[in-house]
Structures are given as structure tokens and as C-alpha cells.
């Protein structure tokens, strides 16, 4: 009850703030662009734009076409569709109408490349990518509050990404972290594995292998891997790197072997060993430092491959090799593309933005997701070979984020008023609770469920967000559109990031249009409802 009142009051305050703020943009569908965005704007800073990027892209393209058995020519997707893919993958929401207008007003031929860079460098990318990565780094649970602070870890990771720190250094900090989980956020990577006041070496080992080596060796904890070559001794050798890691009220620290030995029979202390590339294991201050250095060693190809596969997964909604964290050995023919991406990542200071931009610039990422005139089997083969962009289900936070964005007209970002963000946070959490958080991985072909359909059709979020009042997109489109066609087109742009097809317009016009060519705002509410409940809205494509 109190929470509801609180939210209501916050809502009123935020809405007033929003209205005053929004007054700066009187025309919601204005095509005006800020001066800074015009052609004289400086080239956005980013990774190298020299020949090496073009070369890397050419190598990726060569590999993609070498692995393709389809002779059909696939059209390139609409630019707005690509903009939507990027925004969903990297910001967790669809682009705002404001962003669409700005993009369309850029007349330069390379506007898509420029927009790609801008999206990657936007702080929202650091925030969202950090959220997604943290799921594989520390899991989705809040864990034991006493020794684990997920929010601190997340903020730290987001800052690291935003500052463009080489990713190998970030990872090394996590694995070798020392100190308190409150003031050394990276230490939460270790404390996420604390159960009953003990560091669970096995959990940590499994997590590190999945997240940074793209290998699932968890089952080798108890027995030799049934298919892969992992032996139980491999697992034990890796887990032994954490033997000297200890947790106390002063934080994560290292104990000496002598200390450990005084507590246990020395024969119980395992010998730290790595299962491959053992020549890369060098001396270091502690076993953990040695392991961290070995994992991110440029010669240890698995690290780059694992990150590349995960970034591919983030952008496409499907890993290049599934499952995302269990990929073949380097050099394996089926994943040569990951070798190329991983190599480029390593030779360019583990620049995550460059890696993302490389993947986002491929013909695979820019391919259409629909093609007329082929049968299902050929279609799916082309999809599997990355000739057709795969459709995959959005995650719950992407859906609610997109619903909120669709009715907001302006870009929802860190500049929003605090209260508006608070409401957004509470709503997002409630929605994700009701929708079901699938944790780290959603199978690419995960299906819709009845509770989700009910929530989207009848839930409070949809009702409030589609309601036509002066504060929602529906109300503002309704107020500012002079005729049915403009209103329908704007609604489509806001929700689906595209304009209606002619046949859609023809079907929708009759039920929108009154005798005098105007429409009721309730009809626009219905249209917004339809768009938000459409499969197109809930899937990347």
C-alpha cells in the first residue's frame, strides 16, 4: 500500500518534471537535429579506423562466405532495422523516436557506421553490457549480502567498460582481486562463490572456465568429462589455484602454503596445474595471479574466442557456437571465425568496443531477417549459416525497456530525472518478476508462455503505457498528428522502429478512420496495444 502511494507521488513529481523538461521539444515528431550532430560534428572517437579494421572485417567476411552453402543472395536489412538490433543488443531498449529522427536526418552515406560507433560509445552500452556480462561472471542471485555486493560489482564493471579499459586487465583484476567486497568491487567476483563462510573453489573454477575460456568443465569436478577430453585431474589442478585464497572480515587475501599446511595435512593441498598451454604459466606473486595471467595471455586463444562468442551472442541473440560457454578447441574448423575475432581482439589491446563494432559491421549482422520465396528448410539453413539474421526472443528487461522507450518519444538515459528513473526501476523489476527472469541464458528458440502473453495483453504496464494522456507517447502522437496516416506511421516508428507497409496501413485505416478522417485517441491506444503485443516487438529480427 505504502509502496503504491510512494510510487504514485513519485509519479506525479516525475511527470511534472518531465512535462517541464519536455517543453524544450514542443514537436514530438520533429526532425530537427542538434547542431552537434550535423556533418561538421567531429568524427566520434573509437578504436582504430585504419586499414586493420577493414582487413579484419574482410577476414571475417571471407570466413563467413567460406562456410556458407547457400547460393541465394540475401538482401541487406533496412537501416532502421539494424539500428533497432544495435540498440536492443547494446542498450537493452529499442531506439527512441528522437534517435530515429536524428539518424534519418543524417544524409551522409556512412551514417550507419557512424550510428554504430555512437551507440557503442554511449554510456548506456557500458551499463547494459556490464549487466549482461555480470550474469556469467557472478550469476544472477544476490548471494550472501554479508560478503557479496552485486551492485558494486556491476557499477565497477560498467565503469571499466565505459572507460574503455583493456578487457584482459579487467578480467585479471577480477581473478586476482584482494581486499573487501565493499571498497574493492572486483573482489565480489571471488566472494560470489562463498558458501558457509568458505570460498567454493569448485564453483569458482567452473565459472572461470565458462566465462573466460568458453569451456564447461564443471562435470569433471566429480568424474572425467564424458565427451570432451577434460579429466577430473584437470579440474582439480585448476581448483588448486584457489587453495591459498582465504576470506576473513578483512576481505579476500592469500594465505601462505605453510599456514594452509598447519591447518590440514599437506597431502590434501593440490598442485596448481593448467589443462593446456602449460608453457604459458609463469611465475607470479600468488597462484591466483599466475592463473589470471595465464588466462589472459595473448597466446591462450581460448580467452579471446570465449569473449568473441559471447559478444556475438549479445549482438545476435544467438551465440556463434552454442552453448555460448562450451566451444571447441582453437583451430577447430567450425569455429574459425572465433579464432579470427579472438586474434583481432588480442592484437588490439582487448578493446571490447572494437570487437563489438567488428561484429556489428559484418554482413551477417546487417543481413535481412526475411526473404521471400524460399522454403523453411533452406531458410533455416541460411539462418544457421548467418546469411539471414536470426530471429530470437527478447529478454524481459529488453521488453519492458522497449515498452517504456516506445511511449517516451525522447531517449531514456542517465539524464532523465532521478524520480523517473526510480519509477522505471521499480516497474522494470516488477515486470521482470512477473515475466520470469531466465537468468544468464535464454535458449535462442525459447518460446512465449501464457503468463507472459497475459501480462503483455492485460497487465498494468501495457494499460498505463498505451493510455492516451498528455504524458504518454500515445497522447502526444494523438495530439500532434493531423491525420490517421501520420498517427499510424508515428506509432509504428515509436514501437516497431519502422513505417507501416502499405497493406498494413490499408487494413488499419478503416478501423482508425472516422467519417471526417480524424481518429479517437482510444483507437490509437488500441493500435499501440496491437504493436506492443505483436511478435515483431518481442523478437529481434
Amino acid at each position, binding site marked *: 500500500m505504502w509502496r503504491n502511494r510512494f510510487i504514485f507521488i513519485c509519479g506525479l513529481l516525475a511527470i511534472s518534471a518531465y512535462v517541464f523538461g519536455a517543453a524544450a521539444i514542443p514537436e514530438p515528431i520533429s526532425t530537427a537535429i542538434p547542431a552537434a550532430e550535423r556533418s561538421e560534428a567531429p568524427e566520434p572517437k573509437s578504436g582504430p579506423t585504419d586499414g586493420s579494421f577493414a582487413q579484419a572485417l574482410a577476414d571475417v567476411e571471407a570466413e563467413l562466405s567460406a562456410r556458407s552453402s547457400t547460393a541465394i543472395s540475401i538482401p541487406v536489412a533496412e537501416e532502421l532495422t539494424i539500428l533497432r538490433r544495435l540498440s536492443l543488443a547494446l542498450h537493452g531498449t529499442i531506439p527512441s523516436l528522437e534517435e530515429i529522427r536524428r539518424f534519418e536526418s543524417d544524409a551522409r552515406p556512412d551514417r550507419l557506421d557512424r550510428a554504430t560507433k555512437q551507440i557503442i560509445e554511449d554510456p548506456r552500452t557500458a551499463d547494459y553490457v556490464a549487466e549482461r556480462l555480470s550474469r556469467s561472471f557472478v550469476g544472477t542471485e544476490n548471494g550472501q549480502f554479508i560478503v557479496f555486493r552485486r551492485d558494486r560489482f556491476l557499477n565497477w564493471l560498467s565503469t571499466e567498460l565505459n572507460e574503455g579499459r583493456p578487457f584482459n586487465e579487467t578480467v585479471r583484476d577480477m581473478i586476482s582481486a584482494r581486499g573487501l567486497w565493499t571498497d574493492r568491487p572486483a573482489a565480489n567476483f571471488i566472494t560470489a562463490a562463498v558458501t558457509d563462510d568458505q570460498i567454493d573453489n569448485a564453483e569458482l573454477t567452473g565459472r572461470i572456465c565458462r566465462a573466460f575460456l568458453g569451456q564447461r568443465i564443471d562435470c569433471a569436478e566429480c568424474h572425467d568429462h564424458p565427451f570432451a577430453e577434460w579429466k577430473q585431474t584437470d579440474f582439480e589442478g585448476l581448483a588448486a589455484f584457489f587453495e591459498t585464497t582465504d576470506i576473513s572480515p578483512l576481505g579476500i587475501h592469500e594465505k601462505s602454503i605453510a599456514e594452509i599446511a598447519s591447518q590440514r595435512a599437506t597431502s590434501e593441498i593440490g598442485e596448481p596445474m593448467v589443462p593446456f598451454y602449460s608453457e604459458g604459466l609463469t611465475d607470479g606473486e600468488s597462484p591466483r595471479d599466475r592463473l589470471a595471467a595465464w588466462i589472459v595471455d595473448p597466446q591462450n586463444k581460448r580467452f579471446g574466442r570465449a569473449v568473441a562468442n559471447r559478444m556475438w551472442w549479445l549482438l545476435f541473440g544467438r551465440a556463434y557456437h552454442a*552453448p555460448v560457454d562450451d566451444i571447441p578447441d582453437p583451430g577447430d574448423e567450425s569455429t574459425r571465425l572465433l579464432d579470427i575475432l579472438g586474434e583481432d581482439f588480442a592484437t588490439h589491446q582487448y578493446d571490447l568496443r572494437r570487437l563489438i563494432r567488428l561484429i556489428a559491421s559484418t554482413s551477417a549482422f546487417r543481413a535481412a*531477417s526475411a526473404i521471400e520465396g524460399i522454403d523453411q528448410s533452406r531458410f533455416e539453413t541460411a539462418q544457421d549459416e548467418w546469411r539471414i539474421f536470426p530471429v530470437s526472443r527478447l529478454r524481459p528487461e529488453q521488453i519492458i525497456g522497449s515498452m517504456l522507450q516506445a511511449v517516451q518519444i525522447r531517449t531514456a538515459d542517465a539524464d532523465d530525472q532521478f524520480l523517473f528513473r526510480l519509477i522505471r526501476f521499480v516497474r522494470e523489476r516488477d515486470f521482470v518478476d512477473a515475466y520470469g527472469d531466465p537468468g544468464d541464458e535464454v535458449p535462442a528458440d525459447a*518460446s512465449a508462455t*501464457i503468463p507472459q*502473453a497475459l501480462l503483455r495483453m492485460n497487465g498494468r504496464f501495457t494499460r498505463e503505457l498505451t493510455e492516451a494522456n498528455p504524458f504518454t507517447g500515445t497522447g502526444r502522437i494523438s495530439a500532434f498528428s493531423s491525420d490517421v496516416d501520420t498517427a499510424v506511421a508515428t506509432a509504428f516508428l515509436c514501437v516497431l522502429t519502422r513505417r507501416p507497409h502499405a497493406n498494413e496501413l490499408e487494413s488499419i485505416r478503416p478501423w482508425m478512420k472516422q467519417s471526417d478522417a480524424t481518429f479517437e485517441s482510444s483507437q490509437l491506444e488500441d493500435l499501440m496495444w496491437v504493436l506492443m503485443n505483436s511478435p515483431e516487438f518481442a523478437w529481434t529480427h
Partner: protein
Amino acid sequence: MSDFQPHPRLRSRRDLFRIALGGGLSFLLPPLSLRASEQRGVERPASLITVWLQGGPSQLETWDPHPGTKIGGPTRGIETSIPKIQIAEHFPRIAEQLRHLSVIRSLSSKEGDHERGTYAVKSGYRPDPTVTHPSLGSLVTQALPNKSLEIPSHVALASGTWPPVGGYLGAEYDAFKVSDPGGQMPHINPPVSTERQAMRVNGLDILNRSFARGRPGQLERTLQPETVRRALTMMNSEQLEAFKIEEETAETRAAYGEGRFGRGCLVARRLVETGVRAVEVTLDGFDSHADNFDAHVARANELDPALSQLVRELRERDLWQSTMLLCVGEFGRTPRINSLDGRDHWPHGFSCLVGGGGLRSGVVIGATDPEGGREPVDPVTVPNLHATILSRFGIDPDEELWTPIGRPLALSEGTPIERLLPAT
């Protein structure tokens, strides 16, 4: 790695095409005489009701008291309808019904954390970071679809922190969560008039067709139109009455108890009558690290009337042969009483009740050490309990499904407990 890997959902996809074929005709489908609600006795397709005691109930304050011992604390035992078997004094009504059930006093699990323990007892597997195993209710629901059902076939009432999930079978086998049983159903009423709703559904059809164009088979793959159709069918279904308790007499409602859990048990009975395959009802509040004894008396005041009334009514309505009942939590509690008069987590030698569905009744399996030792006599693993229940549903627990991680997993790692199965 890229070899053909048959996926369990392929089977249900085939089902889906069948559903799709019959889509337009679905209203003609179940003639009233075939409705599950009118079938009785052994002929009736079976259902599973799990009464989930969240937090880890103390075996010593429920079905395995040790009165007069150091570990027993102040809890006394009472005689039950199974000769020479006592349960905790706070359950006089269940004591009367106990001969229709069986008691396992030596369940053992390896997980002493709430989340992991819940996973282990609900799925029969230890948590594995690379795959999510389906809950028992999801396995049963997937194996035995009820085509005449317009409401979800797997329901969690008064749903707790970790409701049962479909795991690798797919999210469509997750339990449908109803947090306030007998109250308002979540998101079931359309927010607009019937005319506008019809308009909206038509609009959706336009968008579905747009999405399908140039993407052969992909719209079906999303299950979205099918899910929306089923959600709409559900919104208009008479079977929704099963979630309501207004038409039950005040006397019946009082017998179950008017709390969330009591209402949940009553709704569970109504759902089973309608043909729902698996229902879970949660009673929370067993995590008694302090004041263990008061906490258990308070829980017993809800559990005793509701569970005993559920058994009584299922029997009176001739539903007992076709309804399996399992009452269990994620683990038990320590024999040792701590300084706060509480008991801590104890996954060794905890208790459950199981019965109905043609299982043998009046059987008592295992015993815990009156001195509080760790090892119970005649231990029963959770997978063995699952295998027993699956086999009574006619499901082979050894059947293996290909999972998304590319290896086959058995439905259960256990073997059925012969003593609970009817003589053949």
C-alpha cells in the same frame, strides 16, 4: 558438435502442429461427457499435488518426533491411524488421515542451502550451472498433456520464492503462478470492452501476417500466436471457475482454513477436478533458526486442517486413486537445538508424506537416530522418491531426453521404491 541432436521439444513441436491443425476446430473439441471433472476412480488420468513446506520443516516437529529425548525438545507425539506410529502432537487431524498416506523418515539430500535444496527436491538433481532440470510437476505435465484443458496444466498456488520450472523442457512447462489463491487472478481480465478487445485481436492478426512474410515457419517457432490464442481461450474459459472458491460452502472453506495456504489447498482440489495435471501449494515460514517450536505450532495450525481436509475430500470425491499427494520441503532441521531455541538446516534424514495415486498407504520407511546422528536407517534419496512418483504416472524414470547441452539426461536418476508401489 554440430551433429543432429534431437531436442525434447521437437516432440512437443509435433504436438504443436497437431494443435495448429485443429486450431480452428478447438471449440468443437471436448464434449462435456469427456470432461475430466466427470471422470472418477482409477480410470481418471492422474494428477500430482505437491504441498511445499518452504523454509525446511523440522522432521522432529512434524512426522518424526522423538519425544522424551534430548533432541526431541518439548514436542510430544500423538498416536495416529497407523498403529504404533506417532507424529508431532500439533497434527491431530492428519494423525487421523495418516493411514491413507505413507511416511518417509529417512529422505536424504546433499544440499543444505535453501535455493539449492529447493532445486534438489523439486527437480531430483543437484544444481548444475550448465543446465536447468525440470521440476517433477513439469515432467508429468509434459509427458501427459491434457488437450481438453483451457487453463494451464501446471499451477503453483500461493507460489513461493522458487516455483517449479520447466528447465530444459521449455518455459511453457513452468508452473502458472497464482500468488493469492481464491482471490483475483493475475492479468486475466482484458482492460477494454469486448468490442475493443475484438478489434485488438484482429489488429494482432495483421501484424502476425506481416511478421510471417518471408520467414517460413518462424512465426510458429515463436509459439506467439498459439500462446496468445491459448491466453485468449483461457481468459474466456469456464474452467477459470476452478480458481474460484465462492461457490464452495462456508463450511468447506472453513474446514480448509481461510488463510492463503488453506485457500490454496481448496483451489488445488478444484484444479485437479478440472483436469490440471500438476499443482503445487506453498506454505512458507519453516525456516526456524530461532523459536523453532512456536514457529512450527503456528505452521501446524494452518497445515493440519488444510492437508487433512484435502485428503478427506479427495477420498470422498473418488479422486484419491488418481491424485498423488506429496508433502515435503527443501530439507529438515538439525536434531541439535541451538541457543535461540531454533534448529538449523539439516538435509540428512528428513521427512515427507506421500500417498494417493494408487501408492501403497500406511507404509513407514526409515528411522532417524534418537541421539541425533547424521545417518538415518534405510535412507531414501530424493531421486528415488521422484522415480516412484513418475513410475506411478506410467512414466519410465530411466527415459532419457536430449537436453540443450547436447547430452542425454534421464528423467530421474533414481529407482522406484518398491515398498510404496502396489503389489503386481
